[in-house]
């Protein structure tokens, strides 16, 4: 038996492998998740139900993404894990260390080096290539949940492509605020068929889902759903002819650390002076830019 405290002692990795199969979850479960993932890829934007397993982190803390990562990862893979663009936040570090422990794969902070990237609520700034896989952690996979609480009804709406309620929601938003007020979780139409929740990524990242070179996989552990956007798929944010989709406006602002003005910025309040400062949300890209500048 492996004691709980032993999980935090890396010298015991060998004994962990003796007790657990490679990548923690058992082979039967992995096979199921891979099968459901293939189905998700075959029907872009469709939510495939899967038997979400118990993970050593609580549901709602990235277990959907984690199960996808664990069932996909092989010994040759290089893993990167980010949380809101940061490699160093608690959630990202925990998940990265866990996968490292149960697979012994290489990890990296460099987006261009990684083969599998698990992410919470961001797409890395650097271009994602063919062959890389981006795994999203999804809290609420159902884009229609805000307009319809019943799961049976939302499934019917998807089946019949009955999306007028979603459009009506956007119409009412425009009437009330003169603009669509959704920030993160902006609904998108995938391959002209399914409305999909892109997970709570900012609007900034939404255009990067369209005709990408990379495979995007979405896992919702608590809600037990897997869905996907295969490479080179049409992904269009919902918009009206006279109210076009637009991304966050950072004009006139730049990262105080690396100086870039073409990235998604986080707003910070400096405690001492009380002023607003902006930094890149993608920390590894920010650091890379700084290093390149220093050279």
């Amino acid at each position, binding site marked *: 038996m492996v004691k709980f405290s032993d999980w935090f002692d890396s010298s015991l990795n060998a004994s962990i492998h003796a007790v657990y199969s490679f990548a923690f979850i058992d082979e039967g479960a992995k096979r199921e998740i891979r099968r459901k993932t293939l189905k998700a890829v075959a029907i872009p934007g469709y939510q495939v139900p899967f038997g979400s397993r118990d993970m050593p982190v609580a549901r709602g803390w990235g277990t959907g993404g984690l199960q996808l990562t664990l069932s996909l990862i092989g010994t040759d893979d290089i893993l990167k894990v980010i949380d809101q663009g940061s490699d160093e936040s608690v959630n990202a570090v925990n998940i990265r260390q866990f996968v490292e422990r149960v697979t012994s794969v290489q990890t990296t902070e460099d987006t261009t080096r990684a083969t599998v990237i698990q992410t919470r609520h961001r797409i890395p700034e650097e271009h994602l290539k063919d062959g890389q896989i981006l795994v999203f952690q999804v809290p609420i996979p159902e884009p229609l949940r805000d307009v319809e609480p019943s799961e049976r009804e939302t499934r*019917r709406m998807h*089946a*019949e*492509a*009955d999306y*007028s*309620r979603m*459009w*009506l929601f956007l*119409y*009412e938003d*425009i*009437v*009330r605020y003169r603009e669509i007020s959704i920030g993160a979780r902006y609904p998108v139409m995938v391959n002209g068929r399914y409305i999909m929740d892109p997970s709570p990524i900012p609007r900034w990242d939404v255009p990067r889902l369209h005709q990408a070179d990379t495979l995007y996989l979405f896992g919702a552990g608590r809600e037990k759903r897997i869905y996907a956007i295969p490479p080179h798929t049409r992904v269009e944010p919902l918009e*009206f*002819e*006279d*109210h076009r989709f637009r991304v966050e406006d950072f004009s006139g602002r730049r990262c105080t650390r690396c100086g870039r003005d073409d990235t998604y910025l986080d707003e910070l309040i400096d405690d001492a002076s009380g002023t607003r400062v902006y930094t890149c949300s993608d920390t590894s890209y920010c650091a890379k830019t700084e290093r390149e500048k220093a050279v």
Partner: protein
Amino acid sequence: MIMSRPILIANHLTKRYGPGCPRCRDHTGAQHNSNQCQACKTVIACDNVNLRVFPREVVGIVGESGSGKSTVIKLLHFDLDADGGEVFLEANGKAKEFIPAEKNVLELSTFRKRQLRNSVMGIVYQHPHLGLRMNISAGGNIAERLLMSGWRHVGDMRDRSALLLTRTEVPVERMDDLPRNFSGGMQQRVQISKALSNEPALLLLDEVTTGLDVSVQARVLDLIRRLQQELDVATLVVSHDLGVIRMLTTRTLVMKNGQVVESGLTDQVLEDPQHPYTQLLVSSALH
């Protein structure tokens, strides 16, 4: 005058609640004054109803509570699934592409039914909360139907909503208010705007004036009659109120215990009723 093709044909329309048995027919219907089968306890909501509506015509269905008149309209609007019978609809515009002629529309998939309903029909229910979303603005309620038919321009939809609200005498300033805060008559007028937004070929009115006070009733009826004449839309009116039937319709079916007991020109039915039930109905009307 050459008779045009009917826009709506319903044959042997049947709806029952319960298993049904061979003896149902012997226990239910007007002559037994019951719509529940004594053998299997099945309730026959409507039994073998035949109906035709021609272009620009207004047909009425009159009957007491529980006679099955609302069931007929709900079956035609696909709100309920029929247990028997067939319905043929003359599809217009976009619906022509996917509804083959001479197709029993009751056999279409729910997806096709919804498409057909969106492009061909408009309905006004007795209770506004059935036809309207009370937490969505009046303009939004009208826009919903337009969105269903593929409109994607907010400005155009607002122009169309404003036009419809003007026509139904709802102040345009209240377009962005919630129907929850409207009076009953006004809610009913918003419902009518919504039903007319997609220029339906067939308008279904289910007890539209029931529950409104008499002066408001009169205004709503005036409005319906005016719109009906302006738009030339074929209309099916269901009401228990002979006054409404007399005012709006040219042809009438009288229903009792799920069956049609008498039908004919409205004047004829009301002035010279043949069936004992119709005679009772006409003689009980307040004058």
